[in-house]
């Protein structure tokens, strides 16, 4: 005997369905209207700056082998969405673009003359978030990579490009780029003969600017009181060129000294470009230490609680793919930049959106002849159609 579903039950089933269809997964979002067009304008702006410095746009696969990202990113790769291919191999939605670019440089582009200048605008996906502010699981990176050049000039080129993008976005008054060289820390860790765990502990104390704990930590090692005091101050302060002089006063191991010299060279370059107002030296920036090998930088913009970009030198990454060569790159977070510009309401990037001419008429092909004419002249038009709401 059949038992037909009562009408109100069917209603409930329908409601459940529509609820499921209307929601979107955590960490995903829509862009519409002004925010969407502003986002497009920010992307175009960055890509045209990259193009202006002769960076060639590349498009990398969205789905790739998980092993690629594990090699490229280490433990960070485990944040990726993973699934299996039909032959059972583990795939991932890319959590990072640099790994793919490094592999392409070592394989597909191996015979190209160096240096390679590559750029991209592409979404990355991360299943698990690291922090509250990083709620997005899909975010778009605007990035460039300069592969096969080791000089300070290559480092400076990256910083100049990042600064130009921010200036062109109208953020020249509100951005700040901090620079550091991870070899300063590596030299100190080497001199103190830290084991893996102690090195991680010291890195964390510096990264969270926990000066008091850091002094206590260094007590246990062969350090002078003066060294401990200055060093804990150094990790707390960021500043201009004087930071390097202050550091040279207490840091004497050759590895760190070489890094301080390199940092100073980059700083002098920044000064000569007239950018020293918006740059800071921050010896306490030690994120992603196992990935970067020299200069590192972070980009902050007023109005957003998180950084909008980061970059650095990664001279060991391409070696994972069979060809060791120096490389440096950076990414800007398109969603973060868009958010800042939407919130500040300062942007003029999307002004054209509100300008269009309406073409209406008695429903005939005349409308489209007129439309084609205006389009050929480059005008923005809108055909007036009757709304289906009025049917």
């Amino acid at each position, binding site marked *: 005997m059949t038992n037909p579903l009562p009408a109100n039950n069917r209603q409930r089933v329908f409601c459940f369905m529509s609820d499921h269809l209307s929601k979107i997964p955590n960490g995903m979002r829509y862009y519409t209207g002004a925010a969407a067009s502003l986002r497009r304008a920010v992307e175009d702006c960055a890509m045209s700056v990259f193009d202006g410095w002769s960076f060639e746009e590349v498009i990398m696969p969205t789905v790739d082998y998980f092993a690629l990202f594990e090699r490229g990113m280490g433990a960070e790769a485990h944040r990726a969405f993973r699934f299996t291919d039909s032959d059972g191999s583990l795939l991932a939605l890319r959590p990072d673009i640099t790994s793919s670019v490094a592999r392409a440089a070592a394989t597909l582009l191996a015979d190209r003359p160096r240096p390679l200048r590559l750029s991209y605008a592409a979404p990355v996906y991360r299943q698990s978030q*690291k*922090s509250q502010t990083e709620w997005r699981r899909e975010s778009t990176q605007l990035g460039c990579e300069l592969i096969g050049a080791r000089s300070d000039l290559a480092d400076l080129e990256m910083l100049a490009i990042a600064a130009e993008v921010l200036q062109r976005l109208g953020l020249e008054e509100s951005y*700040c780029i901090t620079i550091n060289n991870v070899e300063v820390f590596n030299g100190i860790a080497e001199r103190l003969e830290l084991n893996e765990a102690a090195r991680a502990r010291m890195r964390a104390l510096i990264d*969270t*600017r926990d000066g008091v704990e850091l002094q206590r930590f260094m007590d246990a090692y062969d350090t002078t009181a003066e060294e401990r005091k200055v060093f804990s101050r150094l990790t707390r302060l960021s500043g201009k060129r004087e930071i390097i002089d202050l550091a040279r006063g207490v840091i004497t191991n050759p590895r760190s000294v070489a890094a301080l010299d390199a940092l100073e060279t980059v700083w002098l370059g920044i000064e000569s470009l007239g950018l020293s107002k918006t740059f800071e030296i*921050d010896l306490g920036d030690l994120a992603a230490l196992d990935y970067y090998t020299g200069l590192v930088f972070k980009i*902050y913009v007023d109005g957003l609680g998180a950084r909008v970009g980061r970059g650095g030198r990664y001279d060991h990454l391409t070696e994972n793919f069979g060809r060791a060569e120096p490389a440096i790159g950076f990414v800007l977070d398109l969603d973060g930049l868009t958010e800042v510009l939407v919130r500040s309401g300062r942007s003029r990037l999307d002004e054209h959106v509100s300008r269009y001419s309406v073409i209406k008429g008695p429903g005939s092909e005349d409308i489209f002849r007129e439309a084609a004419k205006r389009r050929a002249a480059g005008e923005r038009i809108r055909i007036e159609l009757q709304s289906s709401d009025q049917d």
Partner: protein
Amino acid sequence: MLTIAIAKGRLQGEALALLARAGVRASEMALTTRRLAIEDESGEYRFVFVKPADVPVYVEHGIADCGVVGRDVLLESEPDLLLPLELGIGRVRLVVAAQNENLPGDAGILRVATKFPRVAAAHFAAKGIPVEMIQLSGSVELAPQLGLADCIVDLVETGRTLSENGLTIVEEIAESTGRLVVNRASYQLKAAAIARLIDALSEAVKAVKSETQTKQ
């Protein structure tokens, strides 16, 4: 202007007193109102009063540039923040407590009632003890008495509430004091103002410390 998020309740009074010592003073009148956001006398700072667990949320988003909150909250939520200063206020201990000094050893699984499920899970995982986590939002001390749990993980100040509910401390997991936390972006973008605040607060902390030492 710097916005400082302050954990309401246990830490609030001591935090305001320490800030006042560091020269950041909210007027008495403003404090007696029930407003949750007030400015200090100089107009350089704004205080917002929020629940302890919400302090890291406000600061991580950069809505507040910095905050004053107990280490216990930070251990539980593991926010991505800078921790430049320990303030030495609101000292409490995070402990395991049970009706006996020893935890039941061979129960197969240990039932733990707590407001700190992450800290508790990490603690017992490190010891290789499998646990059933029972998350409560208050009066945790009741749980063993009523048979809901074998032990609790909770904050202890004097130990009175524990003993009045027939519990003894089995072991200490961590000590917690008030911390100054700072947003990563604010730290760079408002570097001068934040450095001033950190220096003034660290002087105030030192002064309080030396006073209590001379008293003893």
